[in-house]
């Protein structure tokens, strides 16, 4: 069977679900953050597949922007995690249940 748009979309959907599983099941802030990156990548894959099969490059430009924004987001997020760790000596979400530092 020739690979078409549905194949790529299914891989993307499964990858997104895996990322969601990571966010739900894992309790370490860093691993949860990595799972978020996985979900972002799944969206990228869907966009590139749509772009290819609709013969329109706009989707790929969108992915380019998403990758750049994700890089900025990772930098800020990791800085926040480091700041939090400095204050509380933990990066485990169950220890970070209080609103006040």
């Amino acid at each position, binding site marked *: *069977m*020739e*690979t078409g748009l*549905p*194949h*790529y979309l*299914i*891989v993307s*959907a*499964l*990858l997104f*679900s*895996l*990322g*969601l*599983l*990571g966010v*739900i*099941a894992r*309790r*370490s802030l*860093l*691993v949860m953050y*990595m799972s978020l*990156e*996985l979900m972002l*990548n799944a969206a*990228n*894959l869907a966009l*590139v*597949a749509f*772009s*290819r*099969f609709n*013969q*329109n*490059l*706009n989707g*790929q*430009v969108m*992915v*380019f922007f998403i*990758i*750049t924004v*994700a*890089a*900025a*987001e*990772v*930098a*800020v997020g*990791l*800085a*926040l*995690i*480091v*700041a939090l760790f400095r204050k509380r000596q*933990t*990066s*485990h979400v169950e220890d970070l249940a209080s609103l006040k530092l």
Partner: protein
Amino acid sequence: MPQFTDLLFYAFAGLTLLFGFLCVANPLSRNPVTSAMFLVLTIISMAGLFVLLHAFFLAAVQILVYAGAVMVLFLFVIMLLDLKEEDRRKLNKTAVGLGSLAVLGLAGVLVRAMLAAKPVIAAGSKPVEGSTKELGRILFESYLLPFEILSILLLVAMVGVILLSKKDLK
């Protein structure tokens, strides 16, 4: 007789999903470094899928920016924070089970929707190639303003990160 590109698709898709699974739910290790390494492998397999979709520039950017820059940042932070107690923690079995069930349901719904949908494929015109030249033209003609805004966003993120990393926020 399946074509070679189809075989490559199944290989890369399988690798992407396998490494993705090992990244989020490795049965052997709960070490964040292991997760990070498997995330790098996931991203590299996904770059293979991008090449199969003729998005060559994005495949290169994926490896350079994600596997290169972002994951190195992740590893730096993992090494910076000394995370030893993660392995000793007990997992909340009910929470993990219920979460997996919910995620499985979502995956089922998504896959059913993808299979049921009949996406309209644009016919006629020549298939697009995601080469640097084509992408650069469209980026600097139609998307010039978003591109410039993005550079400001990167500057803001940089200043923010420097401010956040200072010892005392004064």
